[in-house]
């Protein structure tokens, strides 16, 4: 947890009526500028939260399509690494921060458009149109 994060006292926590939700950032298609080590760390923090694949370009030119699920941040980029799955391989893979030259939020954001309000709107529209058995269905996997 970073020092600049607003902290709650126990009294504030116990008195909370509504919990603030997180702001959902629109990151799909974003290519962050990586001018400094801190830029890279921040971009990878966002990639960890992102519900889609990202494309990593390594300093040796290799491009990796990856779903990032773990970031271990160390004192230097060389001591920091991330873990990911690729669509084409079954095993977990690992890459050092110091090997990464470019990050692109290339995959579809799987959390976008799935807010409660979206469902309420869709439900009301379908109900008004006389539809029966209204439902959201999971996206196809193939």
């Amino acid at each position, binding site marked *: 947890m970073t020092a600049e994060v607003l902290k709650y006292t126990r009294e504030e926590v116990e008195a909370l009526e509504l919990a603030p939700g997180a702001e959902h950032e629109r990151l799909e298609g974003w290519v962050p500028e990586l001018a400094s080590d801190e830029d890279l760390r921040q971009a990878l923090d966002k990639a960890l939260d992102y519900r889609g*694949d990202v494309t990593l370009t390594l300093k040796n030119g290799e491009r990796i399509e990856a779903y990032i699920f773990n970031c271990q941040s160390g004192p230097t980029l060389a001591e920091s690494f991330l873990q990911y799955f690729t669509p084409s391989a079954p095993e977990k893979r690992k890459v050092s921060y110091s090997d990464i030259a470019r990050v692109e939020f290339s995959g579809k954001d799987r959390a976008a458009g*799935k807010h409660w309000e979206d469902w309420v709107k869709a439900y009301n529209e379908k109900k008004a149109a006389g539809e029966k058995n209204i439902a959201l269905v*999971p996206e196809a996997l193939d």
Partner: protein
Amino acid sequence: MAIPISQMWTVSTYVLKKKLTGTKRYPLVLMLEPLFRCNLACAGCGKVQYPPHILKKQLTPEECFAAVDECGAPMVSIPGGEPLLHPQIVEIVKGLIARKKYIYLCTNALELKRRLPEFTPSKYLTFSVHLDGQREHHDYAVCREGGYDIAVEGIKEAVKRGFRVTTNATFFDGTDPNSVRSFFDEVMGMGVEGVVLSPGYSYDKAPDQNRFMGRARVRRLFRAILSNRKPTWRFNMSPLFLEFLMGDRDYDCIPWGMPAFNIFGWQRPCYLLQEGYANSYKELLESTKWEDYGVPSGNPKCANCMVSCGYEAPAVIEGFGSWKGFLGMIRGTFSRYPDKHALDMLSEAAPHGSTPLVQIESPASDLEETHV
């Protein structure tokens, strides 16, 4: 409390052994997620928002057994995703039963009736069916009309075949406490062993970020729901945890008590927050900065959480780890929690006229603060 004596004995002796050996951090329930794939697309669920290649992945039975063996928890909850979509779920369940683990297989029950013949009733196996309230409330919550009826059909068939069955519900802001109480009547009438319930949590990954109750509101809602209990109601949870939800007890979160394991590894720090993964339970225990989480840390991500994965374990440990806690648990099991103020809250929360599908626009904020 609707939990069989053999299960209580297993858990109580486990807790006492840990106490006698001076073990400070240990797991009570392993949250084993064998896959994230689901046959529902609930708008409030952040568990299923992954690219297809992640949703296609699943733990092998061997990976499941290794996780269970490593952490040693006496109980294993199998959420997901929808576990009944896992092609080897029967093998996984059999392997856990062979290890004498008490299993709660959490399911939306869309496939339950069809899959039941593949399972054998056992005191170690409970189907924990996701039902978020009465028919219209549940269907709206899971974004599928007709979902409730299919689930109830599965519940009735499972009960008929001699399986242990509970229901589990998550309540978000806007929940009508009167409807929840009627829901308890309905599910107990189906012959289930007991009810499991929890307040919703505002985790960052959930697409729906606007329906999360803070602690004050959670306590009022659960006091309205759980006071003045009917003698037919049974809860498959620690009575002390229910008192925590009602605002009668205070606990600090112990996320290591219900660790989560899935295709990514051991989730850090808990089932709800997703801040990385460890390769083993030991690594999770030793390398997580636990002081950064829970209410005392001031971490805003933990500010509204009163969820069982953090707070039921301390209630269970208190219940089986001290005479005071044990007596409190016995009292809580048999008490009806009479409370006139809570009855007044129910009257105030009662909807006027015909009820819309779900009261998402009339939250429980109208309820007054409770006298805790």
